[in-house]
């Protein structure tokens, strides 16, 4: 009896919290103004005041958005295990497969430390190499943290652009890799490994289990990224009033043609998650970097990373890794130029 009650109250808790969340979110702006102007009594318009105002408003806003969306995405993700994704992708024709794989990459839970077993699991059960790559490109690049942060800091248009271009890159890059017939560039032992039958079967989850999944996702992801969010916003707040408006214009502005390739080259060896890079990108943009260049930089940092290549080296031969990096980087390059041209 007591157990039932516990379960039930836990089930409803998030839905009770929802209105509270909404109220706080709704009044966040006046509340932070009130703290700055009345409680701390700081002088309006001064650099320090405005920097603090920005910080006090942005930090809770972004963290609250993160917690809410990750909770719901966590619930959605509990329906998409990699095993199920693999089953959907088995024996799909290339183009449809690439599209599906990229879309599934967004919703399937993915951690870069699982990249290898996932890769092996896909390839060995007959998911085409190119389709597998579509998945591997989309999964880390388009994730809920990136989308929420972009939405919170730049609005829904930029978030949408990011998702759509990310998807396009994942689909085309995977398609091209498939067409290049690079199967022999996979390390020799890969196709010899026998994939055991998963004895586990599908873990059957009840709704309460899925809600727990959501809780755990919030705890895990917010627990991991909050510090990056705070540091990123602090840097943003600091730069807000102090760094000249067009500081980045010369280096990352529209007029310099080399800015896109340069920021990709800088971005590849850098490794950070979306939470760490997006607040910094927002500063770059505010200080005169163009949208296309910033987008390219961000995608290169999140989508292509040196540690990931090193992990992938275990299963892929060098030419395939180079092809992978080259094709994705070219895609990002096109996106960068395209958006510099449009906006």
């Amino acid at each position, binding site marked *: 009896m007591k157990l039932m009650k516990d379960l039930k109250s836990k089930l409803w808790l998030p839905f009770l919290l929802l209105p509270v969340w909404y109220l706080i979110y709704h009044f966040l702006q006046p509340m932070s103004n009130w703290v700055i102007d009345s409680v701390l009594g700081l002088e309006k318009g001064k650099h320090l005041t405005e920097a603090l105002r920005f910080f006090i408003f942005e930090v809770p806003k972004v963290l609250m958005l993160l917690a809410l969306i990750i909770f719901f995405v966590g619930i959605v993700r509990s329906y998409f295990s*990699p095993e199920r994704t693999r089953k959907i992708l088995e024996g799909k024709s290339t183009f449809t497969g690439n599209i599906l794989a990229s879309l599934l990459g967004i919703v399937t839970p993915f*951690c870069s*430390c*699982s990249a290898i*077993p996932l890769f092996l*699991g896909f390839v060995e059960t007959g998911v085409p190499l190119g389709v597998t790559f579509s998945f591997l490109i989309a999964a880390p690049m388009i994730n809920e943290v990136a989308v929420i942060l972009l939405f919170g800091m730049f609005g829904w248009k930029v978030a949408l652009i990011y998702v759509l271009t990310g998807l396009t890159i994942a689909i085309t890059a995977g398609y091209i890799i498939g067409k290049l017939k690079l199967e022999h560039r996979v390390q020799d032992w890969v196709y010899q*490994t*026998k994939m*055991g039958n998963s004895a*586990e079967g599908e873990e059957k989850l009840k709704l309460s289990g899925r809600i727990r999944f959501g809780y755990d996702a919030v705890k895990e992801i917010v627990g991991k990224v909050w510090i990056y969010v705070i540091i990123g916003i602090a840097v943003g707040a600091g730069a807000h009033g102090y760094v000249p408006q067009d500081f980045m214009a010369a280096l990352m502005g529209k007029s310099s043609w080399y800015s896109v390739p340069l920021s990709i080259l800088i971005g590849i060896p850098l490794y950070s998650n979306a939470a760490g890079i997006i607040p910094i990108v927002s500063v770059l943009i505010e200080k005169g970097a163009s949208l296309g260049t910033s987008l390219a930089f961000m995608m290169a940092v999140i989508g292509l990373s040196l540690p990931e290549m090193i992990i992938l080296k275990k299963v892929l031969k060098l030419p395939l890794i180079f092809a992978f990096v080259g094709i994705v980087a070219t895609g990002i390059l096109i996106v960068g130029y395209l958006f510099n041209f449009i906006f």
Partner: protein
Amino acid sequence: MEIKILGTGCPKCKLLEQATRNTIAEMGITASIEKVEDIVKIMGYGVMQTPALVINEKVIISGRVPSNSEIKDVLNKNQ
């Protein structure tokens, strides 16, 4: 009871190993714990997400670190 932790060495894998060891000590049961880090062997279990918990050659949990009470639960069930 024979317990295996499958994982290539990511932070979560270490968490799972630690949690399992603690739980076993707490429950006072005798069990052998082996950490499997070889990717080919891991694939042999049909696991696509690490870490995974294997009890008596059966994959019980994969892709996440369960709570201590859940570990206790599955240990009891699969004894």
